[in-house]
């Protein structure tokens, strides 16, 4: 650790904290269909137009089953649409490179990936997809899937805030309003700013350039990067326009753009905690949740940063200077600190954009991004999904420890009953099943072994990372794994779909169950949800569930690798 890094980290968290309340307040207004925002003058007519075109009655609310039904139908239509856009891109416009149809398994993987807000990219961005495929087929989902996540979180929050209510909002209204009042205007602003920093935005074909060093002719891709980058970050999507993602100078040219992109990733998830506290009438609770996220985040950053700064002794033995830390797979202008911070941000939130190769991190440095994802993508998490994932953990934490107050556990005055526990454990079980089940299958299946560029513990880490990233809808990768095989395209797509939509079923069921409940009067006998003790309980629950579940697998991967790096004469 060093002083410039420490200052930057402090300023980053400080600025995030400062922006949380205004962001949250804006969300409060947007997620209330009657809410007034400053954008009303310009946007309200557009909103009304949408309702008229699609025949939506904004005053009509849905119960949880209808809400879930609408969400699933919308997502399924988007999934199918994108699949066909990718398959038919040859016939579609904006394809100056004359790129051919995407293979069926890869098209399925990519469509699932973007529909689920994962943005796992088995395709090579600029080399596989036309501008139309990217800008329409994918960017549509970068907005839509982000709005779906926020809508689901809002539905759950409404469930907690309401008493004896049958409905939890209207999915279509949430979808339209989140896009019109949050994602589109903010992306527009961020895209313009990124443009000012040098992120490109055009529809030109690739440019041929002669390399200065070797004299070889290199094809430099072009395209509408700024617009996609903005929503990539704000919507915790993570799918880069270029294959190198935020390590590419056209996508992330300056330290300032880097800083703002990181902030953009956490902005909405962080603001949602304030929205949550405010909506349930207990802003302190919102901040307690924020604090739990921030502390888990900070701990991860510090470990990752320390590990990366420490460098790799094996390289040092070979005479490669480790004075700047482990620089393998890192963009020189970012270095150990900015790479570690970016990696922590992108995996804490389920973004998945990367500005360094996580595969090349030191074992412990790489363990943090992996563990961040495995904890359930709740450290700020994906837009919306982070909050609803966190609320699931809160319900479990309160149920586990709440009995010790001498009362049936209650959360925000609502008794946690059989159905609620059942839904919450399902929501936690599904990603765990996906990660461990698919990974275990992959490491022993013959087809998968060929995809690994590394054997031994690191290969295991790569597989674990791939399925963790998919099931957690993160989308970043330990890039050593070649995921573009039929096996991985299909299994990863399944992990993404299950990790998103199968989890949403119990989440919205919980919303419905909570909304129906009466509220127990708050007295000094109730569970305290607004202070440091609650924050600690929440952190402990998340860590214990995460650690207990994934420690054995992690021990065989990064942990063994770490000890091998530091103390073994044998290389695996």
């Amino acid at each position: 650790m060093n002083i410039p890094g420490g200052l930057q980290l402090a300023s980053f968290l400080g600025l995030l904290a400062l922006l949380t309340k205004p962001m949250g307040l804006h969300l409060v207004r947007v997620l209330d269909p009657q809410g007034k925002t400053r954008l009303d003058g310009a946007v309200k007519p557009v909103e009304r137009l949408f309702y008229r075109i699609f025949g939506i009655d904004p005053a009509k609310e849905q119960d949880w089953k209808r809400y879930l039904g609408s969400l699933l139908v919308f997502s399924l239509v988007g999934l199918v649409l994108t699949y066909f856009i990718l398959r038919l891109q040859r016939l579609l416009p904006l394809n100056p490179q004359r790129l051919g149809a995407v293979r069926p398994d890869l098209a399925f993987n990519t469509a699932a990936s973007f529909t689920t807000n994962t943005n796992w990219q088995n395709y090579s961005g600029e080399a596989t997809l036309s501008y139309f495929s990217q800008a329409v087929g994918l960017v549509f989902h970068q907005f839509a899937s982000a709005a779906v996540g926020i809508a689901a979180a809002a539905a759950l929050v409404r469930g907690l805030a309401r008493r004896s209510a049958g409905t939890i909002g209207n999915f279509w209204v949430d979808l339209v309003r989140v896009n019109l009042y949050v994602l589109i205007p903010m992306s527009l602003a961020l895209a313009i700013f990124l443009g000012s920093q040098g992120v490109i935005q055009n529809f030109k074909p690739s440019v041929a350039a002669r390399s200065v060093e070797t004299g070889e002719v290199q094809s430099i891709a072009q395209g509408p990067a700024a617009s996609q980058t903005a929503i990539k970050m704000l919507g915790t999507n993570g799918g880069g326009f270029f294959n190198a993602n935020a390590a590419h100078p056209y996508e992330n040219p300056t330290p300032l753009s880097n800083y703002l992109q990181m902030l953009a990733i956490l902005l909405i998830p962080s603001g949602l905690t304030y929205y949550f506290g405010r909506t349930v009438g207990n802003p302190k609770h919102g901040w307690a949740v924020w604090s739990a996220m921030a502390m888990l985040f900070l701990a991860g950053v510090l470990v990752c940063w320390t590990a990366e700064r420490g460098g790799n002794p094996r390289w040092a033995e070979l005479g490669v200077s480790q004075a700047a830390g482990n620089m393998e797979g890192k963009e020189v202008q970012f270095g150990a600190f900015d790479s570690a911070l970016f990696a922590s941000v992108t995996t804490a939130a389920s973004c998945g954009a990367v500005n360094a190769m996580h595969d090349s991190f030191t074992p412990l440095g790489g363990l943090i991004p992996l563990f961040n994802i495995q904890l359930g993508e709740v450290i700020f998490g994906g837009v919306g999904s982070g909050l609803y994932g966190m609320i699931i953990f809160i319900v479990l934490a309160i149920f586990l420890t709440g009995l010790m107050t001498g009362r049936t556990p209650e959360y925000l005055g609502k008794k946690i009953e059989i159905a609620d526990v059942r839904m919450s454990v399902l929501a936690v079980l599904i990603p765990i099943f996906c990660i461990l089940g698919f990974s275990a299958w992959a490491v022993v299946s013959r087809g998968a072994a060929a995809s690994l560029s590394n054997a031994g513990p690191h290969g295991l880490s790569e597989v674990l990372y791939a399925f963790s990233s998919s099931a957690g809808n993160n989308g970043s990768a330990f890039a050593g794994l070649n995921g573009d095989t039929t096996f991985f395209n299909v299994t990863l797509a399944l992990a993404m779909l299950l990790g998103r939509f199968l989890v949403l079923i119990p989440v919205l069921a919980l919303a419905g169950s909570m909304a129906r409940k009466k509220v127990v009067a708050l007295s000094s006998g109730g569970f305290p949800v607004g202070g440091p003790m609650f924050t600690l309980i929440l952190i402990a629950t998340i860590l214990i569930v995460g650690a207990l579940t994934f420690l054995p697998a992690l021990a065989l991967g990064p942990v063994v690798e770490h000890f091998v790096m530091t103390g073994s004469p044998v290389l695996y």
Partner: protein
Amino acid sequence: MAHKTHSLFDRRILGRAAVDAFRKLDPRRLMRNPVIFVTEIGAAVITLEVFARTGGEAGGFVVQIAFWLWSTVLFANFAEAVAEGRGKAQARELRKTRTDTFASRLRDGGAIERIPASLLRKSDVVVVSAGEVIPADGEVIEGAATVDESAITGESAPVIRESGGDRSAVTGGTRVLSDRITIRVTADPGESFLDRMISLVEGAERRKTPNEIALTILLSAMTVIFLVVIISLKPFGVYSGVPFPMAALVALLVCLIPTTIGGLLNAIGIAGIDRMVQKNVLAMSGRAVEAAGDVDVLLLDKTGTITLGDRQAAAFLPAPGVPVEELAASAQLASLADETPEGRSIVVLAKKYGIRGRSLADIPGASFIPFSARTRMSGVDSDGRRTRKGAPDAIREFIGGDIPPEIEDAVNRVALLGGTPLLVSEGTRVLGVVHLKDIVKGGLRDRFERFRAMGIRTIMITGDNPLTAAAIAREAGVDDFVAEAKPEDKLALIRKEQAAGHLVAMTGDGTNDAPALAQADVGVAMNTGTQAAKEAGNMVDLDSNPTKLVEVVEIGKQMLITRGALTTFSIANDVAKYFAIIPALLVGAFPVIAPLNIMALGSPSSAILSAVIFNALIIVALIPLALRGVRFRPLNAAALLKRNLLIYGLGGLIAPFPGIKLVDLVVNALHLV
């Protein structure tokens, strides 16, 4: 029933429980407890492996793992069996009181026939005379009698049961001591109060409470998670070239799934009901005990709960022209034959006016008229003087004339202050008024203070006027009161509190309490109360002590806390077990990870064995805590949570480290592996 509480380690109970522990191995029964069921399957799998492999150098290790896995299951069964055994012992004692009796059934024509009590059916009418055992639960429809209910309550003083009013319920198995009563049977054989009590304390009727079901779901989910973890570990091991032996994987699984709470969950629930029984409260279900923990509003009747049921004489208010000494003397005389506490208090008060203490024998030739509930008067006739003391309307009727307006005023004044006025008369002349006053029970203020600390609000309900009610409420330290309440108002009040999100507990005995008892989340009926009240409530207090609501709430909370504490402890334990087992599993293939063995356990085999042994022994170690319940302190939720988290959360995190290390030292010292 409280006559005998069984010590935790009653040898007979333990012996029987040890046998039952084996009987409970039946997988069909264990299936209801998923955590222990999985443990049993694990034990069975390893046992098969013991038999499948002949010899082999690790054979001894596998045998020991199998042994300790079976022990884990047996210890869990044992805990449950001990809890049940305590209930069964109590049930046996109750059964002794259920003797086969004959009943005198009244036939339609008025003739009486002798039939075995077991043939009685609901709405039969029986006659019971002095010395006979009441053959079935019922309601007195004619007559009044003193009844010895010690078989049920353990209280040796006889109680009065009479037709009409709130003291008409009688319980089968109790004995009539005097007089003769006619009873309408209200329960068929096998459904009587005694039968229900026996099956309750025996735990035969025990159904899982909603909270237990929810917790079981969570524990099952954790079991499933760890199953997935362990099953996926095998392929990961294949990939990494680490052949995980079956015994080690099963050992890790059993250590990780929450066996501690899984094994003790049932025992905690049974013990909760049992603790209620120890306090002479019968909870009709485990659910009622849980609800008691959730209660945050207590509705307390003033009379009998906050104030002594008996009022005491506080002042003599003489009629105009009557010296107070004369009133005191006559009042004393008229009260000599009144054995009620009120009557005695008048005699005591009279002494303060210098009236010499007299006894019945001091006045020869006088005929005393004892107090009775029917006449509501007592008195004495001597030398042609008829001195009486009694309720105003009773006296009015007795003297057959009007009462002077000054006396009428005094009567009203006393009533307005919440007191009870009694009139004293001699012949047709009213001498004055005795002011009987409520006496607030001692120690209540502290108890209500404890409630406040727990976040529970106390509301006093009284028929008194607001002024008196306020005075008594202040004196007793309740949070709130409802004055001039009619019995029906209780129901409305409970509904109002519940609508505001509160959970309400109340006690009651009268028939007009029944709707409120049924509406309350916890309704404690007094055993002396009517059948209707007992049916409506979800608990019966055999001692008929309304203040016991305090204990009821504390036991409910204690049970929930015990459950939560052991759950937290169980899960926190896993961290240390990981540090014992994971390095042991991997160190063979990856010697570099040796530093992870932070407990410096002797060998991989001893590490795994020690974790399994610790995991089994901790169940036994916690049985007393599960049965006795964690110590309860009246604190608010945040303070309770903090305290218990420190003890059971942090303690659960830390304790297994030295625990496993200790077991490992023993294992290595004995060269077990």
